[in-house]
């Protein structure tokens, strides 16, 4: 698979063969911010535009739900997976009005990178065909990987990489420790801790310790268990 157009064509064909009008393969990030993110879809123009205008990449209920599972799920199962807010209900209702009805989402989690997913959706009112869902899982997994490789080839640099020491400092910061406390834990000077953190800020292009912690958790550089462990 050489180009996004070829991948989009193949996905549209497979989706159609399996009874789905729409597909959307995307990284779960705010696309205003990150030009390197993957997004390939055949949603109606109006819907995609509105979605981006609202910068919903991160808060979309389907994306949130896909962060809590590694296995594909039908959108009708969303209420069992995450707490749906009134805003979520509104998004789902708007999608239905735009003609996007029931769907099935395959999550794609690659440690060290932003989460993503590959979704397949029916036209509003059409039922989800259950029989091919296992095949969709496979299509989603391989399609996401194909898109990921294309994107990497386009970018000169790979994903953000922290040094072991930077990761360690970020992990302690995420646990709520001050520079002074981290210095004590690691047996280095407070200035050294500050230096490591500053380099980590630079690599993520952020300016606060909470932001760097969130980014590092989001892309898997540090794990939730590392942060929550006592």
């Amino acid at each position, binding site marked *: 698979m050489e180009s996004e157009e070829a991948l989009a064509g193949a996905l549209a064909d497979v989706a159609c063969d399996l009874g789905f009008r729409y597909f959307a393969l995307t990284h779960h990030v705010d696309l205003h911010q990150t030009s390197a993110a993957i997004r390939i879809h055949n949603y109606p123009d109006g819907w995609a535009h509105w979605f981006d205008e609202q910068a919903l990449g991160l808060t979309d209920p389907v994306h949130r739900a896909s962060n809590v599972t*590694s*296995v*594909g799920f039908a959108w009708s199962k969303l209420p069992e997976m995450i707490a749906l807010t009134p805003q979520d209900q509104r998004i789902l209702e708007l999608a239905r009005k735009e003609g996007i009805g029931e769907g099935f989402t395959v*999550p*794609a*989690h*690659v*440690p*060290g*990178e932003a989460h993503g997913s590959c979704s397949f959706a029916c036209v509003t009112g059409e039922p989800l065909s259950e029989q091919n869902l*296992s*095949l969709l*899982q*496979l299509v989603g*997994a*391989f399609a*996401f*990987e194909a898109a*990921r*490789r294309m994107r*990497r080839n386009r970018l000169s640099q*790979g*994903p953000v*990489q922290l040094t*072991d020491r930077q*990761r*360690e400092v970020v*992990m302690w910061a995420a646990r709520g420790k001050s520079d002074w406390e981290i210095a004590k834990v690691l047996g280095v000077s407070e200035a050294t801790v500050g230096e490591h953190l500053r380099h980590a800020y630079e690599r993520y292009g952020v300016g606060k310790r909470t932001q760097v912690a969130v980014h590092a958790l989001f892309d*898997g550089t*540090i*794990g939730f*268990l*590392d942060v929550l*462990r006592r």
Partner: protein
Amino acid sequence: MAIIVEGGCPNPSTDRTLRSMFEDRKSVFVDLLKWDLPVLDGRFELDGFDDRHATYLIVAGEDGDHLGSARLLPTTRPHILDSLFAGLCAAPPPTGPEVMEITRFCLSRRHNAMRRRRTRDRLVSALASYALETGIRTYTGVAELGWLQQILAFGWDCRPLGVPARLDCGTVGALAIEIRPDTPELLAANGIWDLADAPPLPVRQAA
């Protein structure tokens, strides 16, 4: 340090690395993943495939403790894909002297995410390098979907052998991985290739 144990299943209690490997396997597959597997002496996870035909690739720490490992089974005799998971393959899976099955890919839970990731990279690199040295051209294996996505993302050449199925142990699929001279390069492009502190792999023969 990467260690290869060829020629079958050693006695788990005779060696620190092997002991900790079988203990970690119990911790991961039985305690964490809740697979229905036999446990020896309440401590070690060993099954019928841990016999004299199995080969173990082990990444160990300086103290000898197991950090991560994989068990390789020859496909010229009964193995997991053709016996326990035959239904996962749309056609008979690849077998032969140049095809090995990767089973029990295990990362110790005694370490944090960073250390496990490093171990994972070293283990994947050791698998590729072992294949290139010994003439293995294809690895096969069964993986749960989340893990399958990660295996794809290592960058090597993977293809599905059939449609995944929902089983008691989760939704799992069968894969084949082709190992070629450019595999190290593909892994390196994904930041996985890591043989830094493992020059020639010491090969130990099991007693």
